[in-house]
């Protein structure tokens, strides 16, 4: 099973574990659940609880 993608409900940014998040220095392969608690949306800075499973 491929790790799930998550979407920021505030701005629509999609966190894709396959791509990681260079803006927050998150390397590819990190599942959403494994992101640190202080991680925020790289586009609008919404905290993790503002993310929703995408599909």
């Amino acid at each position: 099973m491929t790790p799930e993608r998550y979407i920021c409900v505030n701005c629509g940014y999609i966190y894709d574990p396959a791509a990681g998040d260079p803006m927050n220095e998150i390397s590819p392969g990190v599942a959403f659940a494994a992101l640190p608690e202080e991680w925020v949306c790289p586009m609008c800075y919404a905290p993790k609880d503002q993310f929703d499973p995408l599909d």
Partner: protein
Amino acid sequence: MKPSVASLYQAVELQQEIPPLLIGERANANGSKKFRELLLADDYQACVKIALEQEARGAHVIDLCTAYAGRDELADLTALVRLCAGSLKAPLMIDSTTPACIEACLRLYPGRAIVNSINLEDGGDNLRRICRAAKKYGAAVVALTIDDKGMAMTAEEKVRIARAIHAIAVGECGLRPQDLLFDCLTFTVGSGDATLRDAAVQTMEAIRRIKAELPGCLTALGVSNISFGLAPQARKVLNSVFLHEAVKAGLDAAIVDAAKVIPLARISAEDRDVCLDLLHDRQAPGEKEPLMRFIAHFTARTETPDEEGQGDGVQPEAQLFRMVMDGDKEQLEDVLAILRERFAPIDIINQILVPAMRHVGELFGKGELLLPFVLQSAEVMKASVTLLEPYMDKSEGDAATTVLLATVQGDVHDIGKNLVDIILSNNGYKVHNIGIKVPAETIIEKAKETRADLIGLSGLLVKSAMIMQESMAQFTEAGLTVPILLGGAALTPKFVAESCVPEYGGPVVYCADAFAGLKAVQEFEAGKLTSTAYDDVTAVKAMKPGIRVAEIDRTVSVPTPPFLGQRYVTDIDPSVLFPLINVEALFRGRWGYRRGKMEAGEYAGLIQKTVRPLYEELMRKSLAGGWIQPKVSYGYFPCWSEGEAVLVRADDAVHRFSFPRQAEAPYLCIADYFKSDREGGDVAGFFIVTIGPKMSEETGRLYRADAYHEYHLLHGFSVEVTDALAEYWHGVMRREMGIGGTAAQGIHGVVIQNYQGSRYGFGYPACPDLEAHNPLFSFLRPEEIGISLTENMQMVPEQTTSAIVVHHPQAKYFAV
């Protein structure tokens, strides 16, 4: 001549050769879900079709009712009367209690209509006005036996009210007796309530007496109320038998679903007997109560579910609870009428409605119910209380905890506070919502006047948070000690704990959302409410995302804009914005339709069946209603950077825009994207865009009509349209500067800034200073297109946004 009514095409006698006159009841926004949905979709043609169908099924007259919360009744009703007048052979019954609507419809209806209805609830003012209009335009009138004490229950009372109405309508206003159709309003015999066992008997007796004692007058009746609370199939039979009995008593006209009337000959003798026993309250010695026998008789059969799914025979208490949970208002009046027979209104509120709302809140808290559904539940609660209020003493409910709510000075943001109002007041609390832009002095005054137990303050921007902080000292000085709840997007627990709590004697509490507010009020009642605390050490420190490259290319060429200076654009077609709407943010964020724990398939179904259609409807409605009026003031200005500032030359003056620099690597600052004077200078773009004031008007209208769900939907939609306009205009400016447009970006491309350059809104992290609105307004002069600035640096209308547009390819969002 026989009393009759008429359409453009034909006259119809009110006293039919074979009575009764059948009045079709389905073209009614309150009585028919289907009709209501078509109306809400502004599909007038389909509404007319419902009227036509009833005509085809045998209705002689068509009742037309468009009164529905959040709708413009006058506009709807006059439009439909016009359409029906042209296409219906059957004369119309204009169903409204608003005199102005009735007058307008009578004026334009080309035949002789019936007005439905008048009553004596207000002592006779509306009655007189409507009767005079009926006299003027030659209409007949349905008169309900209601006075200031409510619906008459006994024959005696019904006749007394009918006489009083007759005295005014005929005696004073000059109507003829045959212009009046008295509707004696029957209660149900299906509730099991002992005081209602003879409801049918009383109604039939009243019909008989009115016909005898008020000669020439006619009678009408909404028949189906008689069976409310019973199973659908049984209702059909009982209604038909009752209709027959009422006609025997002298009934002239029946308001019915013509398709559901079963000819007596097709009803079996056994069915007829149980119905007659129930209607006439007949019980032979040794027999069970007629209602018991009726229910036993009909449940012995297999039921086919009714197409409108009404009345399922459950206890009305449980039914009301369910209806709150489901956000279902369909039969609210009927269910409440039954419950009122048995419980005091205040008990219905405290024992059924409030617990139901609490349950809704709990499910929301657990993530099992989405916000839109909570709002629909609150609508049911609100509608129930509104229906119950006339039966309550003024003093009842005074004991409830009282909350004063306001949006602070210089801030027009209404919806955050209003959502709190909706949640608190529909959980049984008393809320005094004193509006927007409220100065601290007024808050103090009102808090004392209303003896508020708590004060809740709201605001949109950081400046409002500052105002909150400043007013804490004022509150203290004024001697206030009641808890203060603070909420709003720009507020943080840290700010509340460190900047507000120390300034005030009582508890000061940060509330992230309306439910946090509810929780605080509950804690207050339990004596457990304490100020927000913030611990710097344990708090989660948010990361600071951004491009990690420090070296900014100083050699990129400066684009040539098509002009220098400021320009207005006011001819943007609103529909070009729709493809740029951030649909995911709208559905999941603004509206709260999050997937959360839902299965992917279930969520996809919700989006497809419920959410998308709502979205499409709003696009259509906002275009039709002209609610989106995009206007832009923008321009390109020569500029140069100086350290952390960008100096902008506009109208022969130089304006300094200062930006913060990141405190850690890569130490970014917006000024770095612009060339210095020595490097030859640069060009900066600026814009202020608005979709105009109409959206605020429309949302205000929905809120006042207690259409909470729609209110929330339209507000969310309006803010995303505003963002779409900013996105659209940013695209235009990129194209004008020759650095690419929005084309082929797709909405997700836009989200991740898949284009050259960036735009930064003032007040966002990389350019937090809202005071920049002062110079910006001085050279973009958006007042010309209707935008003003409050002392809090808030732009009015609220659906307005501003930005600096940067062309540098390395410019992207970053947090400071």
